[in-house]
């Protein structure tokens, strides 16, 4: 959906992740970019250069926050210190929506700093949805949860991943950050049809889409964010756009990061799928 209550009724276009190797290029050349996504945790500090850079970026660009350690799915209680710092940052960036992952990663105050997969159970969905609601209430902005790539499935799971995602977002009444690369990676690792996933999530809740590259190994695929987007992921993206509508789209490139122009060029490839969708809609 171009603009909905899950992305603050915005109509952002194609953005890229703000990454350190590009800071100088962005601040000196001021390239035209529709919006940047920042990793919240990189800027949840009290002072120093990270905030200085962020403020300079905010003077020129629209920024959306994306987190990696809220752990909505963790059985642990929410970390209040984390939430307070996040809210301070939300006020600074004025992000229209905030995303984090549908995963867990901490136990008893110990952090794995990983995006660990959920057991797809009704109990887990209930716990996760409750925490999403708490976070959204505290931050007072829309939340979108992102599906993660995974390498393991649990015996206790009672439903498919997309059914679990649906269960959580319906109970929490929140948005979805649909990562089509993660869907593709997980589909290969767990032998499901990625189109079943894209076809069956509640499309009206999709606030944003992620695209990225991945790495193929002999027995599994790893979500490495160190390559251009592969063709099957673009095809899945096209399908998602067809079902969801033109939606804020973000390219993630986190390792072996090439020049800013190369990353931006890769992200803008999404335009061809958006144009195709728009043309079909116009002629229909």
């Amino acid at each position: 959906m171009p603009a909905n209550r899950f992305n603050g009724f915005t109509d952002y276009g194609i953005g890229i992740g703000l990454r350190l190797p590009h800071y100088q290029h962005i601040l000196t050349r001021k390239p035209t970019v529709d919006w940047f996504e920042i990793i919240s945790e990189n800027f949840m500090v009290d002072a120093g250069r990270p905030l200085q850079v962020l403020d300079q970026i905010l003077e020129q660009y629209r920024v959306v926050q994306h987190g990696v350690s809220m752990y909505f799915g963790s059985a642990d209680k929410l970390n209040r210190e984390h939430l307070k710092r996040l809210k301070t940052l939300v006020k600074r960036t004025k992000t229209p929506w905030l995303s984090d992952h549908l995963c867990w990663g901490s136990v008893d105050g110990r952090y794995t700093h990983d995006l660990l997969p959920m057991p797809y159970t009704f109990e887990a969905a209930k716990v996760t949805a409750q925490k999403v609601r708490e976070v959204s209430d505290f931050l007072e902005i829309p939340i979108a949860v992102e599906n993660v790539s995974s390498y393991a499935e649990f015996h206790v799971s009672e439903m498919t991943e997309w059914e679990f995602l649906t269960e959580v977002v319906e109970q929490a009444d929140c948005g979805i950050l649909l990562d089509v690369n993660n869907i593709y990676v997980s589909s290969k690792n767990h032998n499901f049809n990625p189109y079943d996933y894209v076809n069956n999530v509640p499309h009206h809740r999709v606030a944003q889409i992620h695209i990225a590259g991945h790495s193929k190994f002999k027995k599994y695929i790893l979500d490495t964010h160190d390559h251009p987007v592969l063709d099957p992921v673009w095809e899945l993206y096209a399908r998602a756009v067809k079902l969801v509508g033109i939606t804020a789209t973000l390219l993630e490139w986190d390792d072996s990061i090439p020049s800013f122009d190369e990353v931006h060029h890769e992200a803008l490839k999404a335009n061809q799928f958006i144009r195709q969708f728009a043309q079909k809609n116009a002629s229909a």
Partner: protein
Amino acid sequence: MRRSKPTSSSVSSRKKTRPPKVAPAGQLGELQAAMANAIMRPLASRNRMQKSSSVVAEAIIKPNDRLTSFERLEIYNRQYWFRILDCFYDDYPGLRAVLGDRKFERLARAYLARYPSESFSLRNLGRRVEGFLRAESKWTAPHQRLALDMVRIEWANIIAFDEGAKPTIHVDDLLGRDPSKVRLALQPYISLLEVRYPVDDLLIAAKKGDDRLRGEASNAVALQHKRARRISFRGLKPRPLYIAVHRMENSVYYKSLTREQFAVLQALQQGASIEKACAFLSKRRAPAGKNWAFELQHWFREWTAFGWFCQR
């Protein structure tokens, strides 16, 4: 910064830890505790998962047509260690240069097994390194003192990078005020270090200035580190050195201090009034051609210009 891969020999002799107990995996908390314990267990030789974790793996994780339950859990076990080791390598290039690759890696794995991250931010991963090295000097023998000095300045570096700042006190704010009653605080981002080795210069030599931010949203990490260049410290004689690690215009600096400057700043940091902090100087002979009153004026002007002072 890239570094050499961890060597299998460095972990093969490590004492194996007990496998975690597996609760019936019906409850979310129990399942997560079992999996997290397995993921955070030290890797075995060749960066493989400890075989005893197979009990947990089979209890909670489905195999598929290509990977056993063990292999699927192992992906997460390896990623966990690669990620936190990578972070530790980034934060302690100086310690690595002091110890060399193999010793550093053994220390890193031992430290991280003892003190897993307790913060949502990897920034705090090294919070306990100094205490760890003080308690277990075997990891840095025979360079314990140099290693300790180095980790102190490396942690001070992290503090100086992004710790908060309070409104600064300017030199004009001090004019006319009774020095016996004025108590100044130092900015939270400043660390005062008394060391025995010139670790400021050694750290600059060891670093390549790679201070990239971490925490990007991929959950995959590779551990490929080029071999570190060891610091040559032959002939380096220990002697007292005083350093303030601070921040100006969002860059981290190491400021050499004299013993007297260090003492004054340390006393102020500990809550002494200006008068009390400076009182000891009356018993010391000033450097030739100088007097303490003039020196103090100069020091305070410089420190306030740096923005070092704030309200207590």
